[in-house]
């Protein structure tokens, strides 16, 4: 096992993290650099398709066993439980209202697929294998946190609503459909299918991820610039502490599931990351009283960079200890 500082140093100087840092710097320095909305959307479609397909192809190559179902159940349970922990911490560490705290808590129970994708790229560069079905676990962990957050908000006396239309939007949101769809295509076509489109989804993957992270840096920097007022010391501390708490909750679960070191690291990454795609949209519909600049700034402006720069190396190092690599 390599020391955490050494993994961190390698990670901080990787093209992925440096691209994000470039975007963040450009945005904070008010540069005119920008990525058009349609280009950002295309990059995210590519990343979701590629990661889903590769996960499916890996499952086809290694076969399925009961651990997939157990990992899915564990992922759903983690996603549902983490918001309650986050809510308790937020109420203790910040002065956020119960509604804002519930909305933020929902984001931390759900997952950031870009953090997951970045972690898989870092694992690949370190030649650490992981279970291909972790992609399906990622998709399963998107929604349960929303239910937990709305329950917390309802207890706080808001008229939070989860109607049928919102259920449909959450469960069939474009990211989940593409991720699971590509996973299925990968699982059906297997190694043969992967070989056919390898030049498109394997070789350019890291370059596209760098460009996407450049955009994420720009968006995060813009959010930080415009929402400094919501970043109280308590809220900032929460956004750094909560990913570590989430990862710590996932660690024994991964050990109980018998996941590999790579799989353990990814379950920790999923539990540590905070959503900024599915949950914000659901919160805008179901819980409009919650202030979007709070949850987007904490999730995208603080927790995402923390995980990308420092969190992922820590989770990988700890997973290697557990996984015995």
């Amino acid at each position: 096992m390599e020391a955490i500082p050494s993994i961190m140093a390698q990670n901080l100087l990787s093209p992925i993290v440096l691209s994000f840092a470039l975007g963040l710097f450009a945005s904070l320095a008010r540069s005119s650099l920008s990525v058009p909305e349609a280009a950002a959307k295309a990059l995210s479609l590519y990343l979701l398709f590629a990661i889903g397909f590769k996960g499916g192809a890996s499952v086809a190559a290694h076969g399925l066993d009961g651990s997939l179902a157990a990992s899915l159940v564990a992922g759903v349970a983690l996603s549902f439980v983490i918001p309650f922990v986050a809510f308790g911490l937020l109420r203790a560490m910040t002065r956020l209202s119960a509604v804002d705290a519930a909305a933020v808590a929902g984001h931390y129970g759900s997952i950031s697929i870009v953090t997951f994708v970045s972690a898989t790229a870092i694992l690949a560069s370190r030649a650490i294998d992981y279970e291909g079905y972790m992609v399906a676990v990622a998709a399963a962990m998107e929604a349960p946190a929303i239910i937990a957050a709305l329950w917390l908000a309802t207890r706080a006396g808001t008229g939070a609503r989860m109607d049928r239309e919102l259920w449909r939007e959450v469960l069939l949101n474009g990211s989940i459909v593409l991720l699971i769809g590509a996973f299925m295509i990968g699982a059906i076509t297997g190694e043969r299918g992967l070989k056919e489109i390898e030049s498109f989804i394997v070789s350019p993957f890291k370059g596209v991820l760098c460009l996407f992270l450049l955009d994420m840096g720009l968006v995060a920097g813009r959010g930080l610039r415009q929402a400094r007022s919501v970043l109280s010391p308590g809220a900032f501390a929460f956004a750094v502490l909560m990913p570590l708490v989430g990862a710590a909750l996932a660690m024994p679960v991964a050990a109980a599931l018998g996941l590999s070191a790579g799989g353990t690291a990814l379950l920790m990454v999923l539990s540590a990351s905070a959503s900024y795609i599915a949950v914000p949209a659901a919160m805008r519909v179901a819980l409009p009283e919650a202030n979007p600049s709070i949850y987007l700034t904490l999730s995208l402006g603080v927790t995402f960079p923390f995980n990308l720069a420092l969190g992922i190396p820590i989770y990988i190092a700890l997973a290697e200890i557990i996984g015995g690599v």
Partner: protein
Amino acid sequence: MQMHVAKRVEIIIEAPLERRLLDTISEAGVTGFTVLPVLGGSGRSGRWSREGQVSAAGGMVAVVCIVRPERVDKLLEAAFEVVERHIGVVSVTDCQVLRAERF
């Protein structure tokens, strides 16, 4: 040329609510509308921009409907059901149209 009086209702609303708003006003009998992308802006919830959005959650859209004056109340009541609790702007302006039978 013959002109006819009409009302132009413009609703700027959060992107995740677009479908709900369109369904609601369609059910209220307003089947003619235009949805426009909105580049960015600023309001009580701070500044926002469409550039590089990783999620539709932070975006806004503008829905424009032109209706006969006698139908505007029904449209606003229907729209209000959706926009009441949300970030957005609803405005009504007088306008003139060329072909009254189309509205």
